């Protein structure tokens, strides 16, 4: 009997330990370990390469380097700091940068008061606002209550000061030193990184003592490195985590509105070189065997924004336990790329603290070249891709709409002699995703070249296919090639897809790995067309056809949805629904709403199961895995929060994406065709049933993908494009 008790008990223990192993790290604090977080804000990789920085270069040779996605929920500079401090992409309020030493007199609170003869100390004001008295050694954020109130407006709501809170709970001490004050404006954003949930930092100095006036420097002040070093030395024995704001680069940015552009560049170079000298003095003070050093840039400067880089800044991490190389994390799964959410877990993993955080620990991938110059080249590729993406999309959309229009014109006026143009255009449109898998080899150095490659390449392939094959065969070839290439790429790490114009945008930071919704739509549509058309030519029994087709679509589904490959949940649901619908169609079952609902239900159950398994057993869970993890720990509130976010993205995409036009036109066109070309549809169903089957399956896929994906508009538009292409080609054949 006892065994019956022991068995479930053991099972519970195993499950609990499985959960715990995933979401927390055992607390075992070693006081001798230290981490130093240094802020050198508003700089780019280019600035680092242009400046003379011998000490930094030496550091880079022994460190991990990479680009960090710094996006937060709004444009306030403080929000970038808050996102790092919370380990979540959040926004905060204007004024959040106003922290003070407790005994510092406050001359000015924006929109509240200003005075030359200060009446209150920061500690007194903090007590007035919060009814709690800070210690003499504390740093206080006077907007703490306001930040708290603002934080609950976010979806999901967040609690500020996670770095401070985790440190407090693990008896780790934090010291914040330095500021970015100019002569007329206070900027103490660095304190946000070290404060706890009440807006208090354990110790440090961010007062005016840390800078000296210098009329030749940007902002009229510069960080007094001697005082800063003194402070570091004095706090060193009692500190586990140092947060140091070097300030000068921020001052350059703060005063740039009144400074000529070329002077700004020079000032920034000078500031970086000053900081480099500081590193030369700082490094000998630290025990390099037990100290982690992180150099961060939380915000982009205006020059970066002009080049449309609002999301990637350089980051250097020296970890004594790891060798040099490129930084990576399980959030991005890409070497040389991390996110601002990964900093918190990295620090506390190193300090061996007990914590929970949504981000992932950063690790260093050993490579031959981790220089800043190499990062700069990588960044350039991302910037070029971002600049080129929109025009390329518009070109593809224009070609799709042109193909629709000519197809409609030819069939409306029964000018069937012109069908060749329709076929060439369709071949061209369908071959472009294939071409774009390789277009990153051009490095997108010129927009014109990228557009020419697309247009000429597409038309060339389209023309050749038209000359070599019958229209349906041409479609079979191009969809087959696309489907196989995309599937293989998914299994091999999506390297081609990610750098394609239809891939992810590392600067925007929506998705870093796997298959995005654009390619998911293409992969699914091309696979359906390819499978259906090829099976129609094989003379085997229907159930064998169903089995073969289903098997191929399952392989595709696995590529799309497997957390280790595509990791696209919406895509997985759609592909499973598509596979189910395919089986129903190929076995000549009558489709009705009940059957569709059952297929959808089965798909959802499968996906939830996969995601749950991912959440439970993977050390590197995907988005879906994390979502399930959050659901398990957070309950229905998290579910609704995720749902709201996804619906928000869906609404935003419908409103802002050019692909909405394609989707809308496709939908109108399909409805119109259903009414106007009823006869042609009937003939098509008789003469080319495989084409009709493609159209029907793709319509259901298109609707499903729109319903279950946050950016389903694009995937849906692309799937409908394949459906309409099949329709035109089918009509031209009969």
């Amino acid at each position, binding site marked *: 009997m006892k065994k019956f008790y022991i068995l479930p008990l053991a099972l519970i223990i195993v499950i609990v330990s499985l959960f715990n192993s995933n979401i927390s790290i055992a607390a075992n604090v070693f006081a001798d370990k230290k981490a130093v977080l240094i802020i050198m804000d508003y700089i780019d990789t280019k600035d680092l390469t242009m400046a003379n920085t011998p000490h930094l270069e030496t550091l880079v040779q022994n460190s991990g380097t990479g680009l960090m996605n710094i996006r937060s929920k709004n444009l306030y500079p403080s929000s970038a700091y808050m996102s790092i401090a919370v380990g979540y992409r959040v926004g905060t309020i204007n004024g959040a940068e106003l922290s003070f030493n407790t005994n510092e007199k406050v001359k000015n609170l924006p929109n509240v*008061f*200003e005075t030359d003869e200060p*009446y209150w100390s920061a500690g007194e004001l903090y007590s007035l606002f*919060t009814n709690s008295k800070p210690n003499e050694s504390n740093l206080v954020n006077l907007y703490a*209550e*306001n930040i*708290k109130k603002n934080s609950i407006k976010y979806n999901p709501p967040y609690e500020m000061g996670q770095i401070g809170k985790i440190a407090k709970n693990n008896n780790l001490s934090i010291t914040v030193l330095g500021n970015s004050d100019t002569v007329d404006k206070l900027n103490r954003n660095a304190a946000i990184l070290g404060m706890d949930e009440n807006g208090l930092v354990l110790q440090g100095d961010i007062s005016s003592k840390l800078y000296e006036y210098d009329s030749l420097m940007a902002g009229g002040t510069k960080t007094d490195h001697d005082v800063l070093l003194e402070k570091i030395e004095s706090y060193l024995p009692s500190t586990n985590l140092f947060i140091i704001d070097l300030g000068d680069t921020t001052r350059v940015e703060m005063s740039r509105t009144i400074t000529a552009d070329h002077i700004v560049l020079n000032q920034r170079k000078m500031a970086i070189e000053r900081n480099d000298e500081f590193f030369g003095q700082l490094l000998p003070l630290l025990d390099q065997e037990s100290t982690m050093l992180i150099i961060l840039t939380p915000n982009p400067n205006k020059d970066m924004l002009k080049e449309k880089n609002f999301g990637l800044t350089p980051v250097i991490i020296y970890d004594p336990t790891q060798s040099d190389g490129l930084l990576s994390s399980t959030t991005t799964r890409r070497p040389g790329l991390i996110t601002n959410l990964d900093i918190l877990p990295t620090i506390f993993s190193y300090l061996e603290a007990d914590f929970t955080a949504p981000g992932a620990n950063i690790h260093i991938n050993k490579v031959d070249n981790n220089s800043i110059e190499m990062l700069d080249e990588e960044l350039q590729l991302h910037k070029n891709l971002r600049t080129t993406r929109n025009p390329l999309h518009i070109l593809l959309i224009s070609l799709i709409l042109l193909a629709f229009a000519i197809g409609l014109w030819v069939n409306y006026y029964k000018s069937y002699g012109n069908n060749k143009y329709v076929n060439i255009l369709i071949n061209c449109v369908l071959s472009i995703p294939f071409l774009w898998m390789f277009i990153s080899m051009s490095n997108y150095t010129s927009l014109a070249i990228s557009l020419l490659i697309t247009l000429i390449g597409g038309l060339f392939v389209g023309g050749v296919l038209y000359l070599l094959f019958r229209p349906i065969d041409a479609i079979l070839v191009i969809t087959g090639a696309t489907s196989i290439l995309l599937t293989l790429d998914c299994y091999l790490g999506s390297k081609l897809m990610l750098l394609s114009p239809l891939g992810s945008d590392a600067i925007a930071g929506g998705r870093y790995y796997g298959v995005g919704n654009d390619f998911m739509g293409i992969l699914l549509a091309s696979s359906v067309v390819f499978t259906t058309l090829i099976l129609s030519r094989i003379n085997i029994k229907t159930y064998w056809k169903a089995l073969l087709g289903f098997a191929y679509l399952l392989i595709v589904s696995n590529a799309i949805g497997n957390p280790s490959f595509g990791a696209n949940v919406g895509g997985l649901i759609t592909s499973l629904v598509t596979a189910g619908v395919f089986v129903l169609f190929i076995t000549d079952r009558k489709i009705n709403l009940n059957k569709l609902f059952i297929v959808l239900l089965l798909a959802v159950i499968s996906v939830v199961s996969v995601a749950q398994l991912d959440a439970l057993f993977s050390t590197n869970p995907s988005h879906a895995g994390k979502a399930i993890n959050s659901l398990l720990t957070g309950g229905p509130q998290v579910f609704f929060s995720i749902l709201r976010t996804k619906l928000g993205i869906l609404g935003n995409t419908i409103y802002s994406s050019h692909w909405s036009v394609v989707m809308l036109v496709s939908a109108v066109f399909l409805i119109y065709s259903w009414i106007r070309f009823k006869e042609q549809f009937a003939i098509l169903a008789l003469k080319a049933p495989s084409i009709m089957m493609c159209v029907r399956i793709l319509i259901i896929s298109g609707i499903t993908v729109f319903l279950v994906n946050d950016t389903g508009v694009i995937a849906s538009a692309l799937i409908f494009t394949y459906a309409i292409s099949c329709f035109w080609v089918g009509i031209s054949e009969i």
Partner: protein
Amino acid sequence: MKKTLIISISILLSFCCFASEGLANDKPDNIATKKVIIYMIDNLSLNDITSDNTPYLWSLQEKGGIGLLNTITGGERTIKNACSTISAGKLAVGSNEAHLNFQAATVKNNEKVGDVFFRSTNFLPKPENIVVTNINIINRNNEQRRLGSPGHLGDSLHTLGLTTAVVGNSDRFDVNDRPGALILMNSRGIVDNGMIENNNTGSGSYWTDYALLHEQIETVIDNDVILVEYGDMTRLESMHAMFSKTVYQQERIKILSAIDKSIQNIDQKLATENTTRYILSPSPSRNAYIPSALLTPLIIVGPDNCGVLTSYSTRQDGIILLSNLNKSILSCFTTTIKNPIYNTSYTNSYNYLKELNKHATFNYTHQAWILTILISLLVLLVLIAIILLYKKKPRIYIESLLLLILSLPLVLLIMPLIPVSNRYMFVFLAIILCSLFTIITLIINKLLKIESIMVILFFTILTICLDLILGFDLVARSIMSYQIISGARYYGIGNEYMGVLIGATIGFATLYINRKYSITRLNFIAILFILIVFLIAFPFFGINVGGTITACIALSVTLVMFYKSKIRFRDVIAIIIGTGIIVSLMAFLDVSQPSELQSHLGKNINVLLNEGISGLFYIIIRKLEMHLQIINYRYLGWIFLVIFAAISLIIYRPNQMMSQMKDSFRFIYDGLKGIIIAAIIAFIFNDSGITAAATLSIYFVCILIYALVYDSN
């Protein structure tokens, strides 16, 4: 033609019968007093006045009169605009820096403020004067927007030979903030006397030094009108976001207690039985810690004030406008100016106002949300009804859905009688009541064999008519109606319920005459229509000019169509002339009343008489702007207009189905035409006519579906 004239004459006669009643009205007579003290506590809310924390203010409200100030101005509800509005006695605005006011002798940037003022205004102030440095910009802002003239109060007081003084400020250390001076300034931007420099915060403190403030008040004691600005509430408000809710409330209570003691102290020293005291908060607190604060408390303690303060402008017990304060203050010194504020007796004034405030704020805050939900449900019900019609489902299902839709305006009219403070509960209750009305009308239908839709329409008409005649204020308090806080209208029938009344009336008449045609029935309908026009038009009931034009034209056209199927050109001319005469008579009656009793129409006619064609032009522009603003609201207005144009086209260029219906149910078809005409006229002649057109469309859709159901059966 004869019949058309008879209808018009009947309406005219009914007006004349009531005219004498409108003209006879007695007004309160004020006794002149010698001193006015205004205690200005900005951001005060009604809930701040309690017997525990502010015992003196509590006693004042018990002793004097208390009301709620609707803080609408010519712009945003800011202190600067509010003070300018009080000063002008009309809606007005200040300027961005209207709070930068100084004593003339003050030295700023090594220069006397008086000298700087002279440089910009060519007027050299006396050293003891307080100067409003932005007076030129304030005047320009108001002239450009054709708003009131700030400085009117100061000018009028000076004309009466009285002097003014201001004490106190809302400075936050070196940030100067002295809006109080705007209330008492004259048109040159001068207040006679005062102490508003930051020495009243004494000893370098952020908060007011009350001992010093009291000393300063004694130096201006000889002035006739003294304004004391209590700045601590503004100071607290400026940093409210930094406080936790609990600490904020503690600080607020502390400040209010200090202000209460200060007022008591000053009253003990200065107030005599001839002193009238105003405790007012020109602008509301906008922070989330103070709910329901858009209406601020106003206490007036004077020889004539007790109970609940009411204004002729609002005709709503307890609601006062900022612009009323101007004449109210002046009336303390002269009997030639009538006090626009009078008293109404309530057993517990404070509790009455608290309820009123809660209700008004609930309606104002949740109107958009609740109406969006209910209208969405309504659209859904219409769609379901159309589907059921298309699928030829039994009539009872469709009829029930139509009853649910048509009962909504009636339910929203009686909802103010039920105290609900939760928006979800409100929607839930509205749905329950709609269902209840539907069931009741279906039972009546079963028992009395009266068409259930007619029953619901009849009750809708009856309730609105009784409300207008007996003054239950149901229309004014309905969430589907105008909102007191928005300040667009305070009494009478708004465009929403005007649409409901006309729509329900035409709908009822249509079904009534369709049931059995007889001359007796037609005459009954004619009497009903006359009554409706009268209720919408008469200055003591509906007082809706656009509504009167709509009702006159739409109901006359409908009635003429009932009498004879085709309307001739001379009928149209007769209807237009009749409408013109009725509106003129309405205007005449309104203008004949004392100015404080005049409605918008009377006031607009006065503007026209005083300012000529430019005044008329300005009124038209203002109305058009409001029109566009409402239509543009989330672009829904345009969508509605397009749909409405399409429907009109179907009615006037009928397809086969409509032609069939036209042949089967001529009167219903005429009724639908009447509703369309009403909607078009309402849209043209009302500044928010789109709302009337929208409510009318409910009746159009329901009657149309009902007719189609009948037809298919």
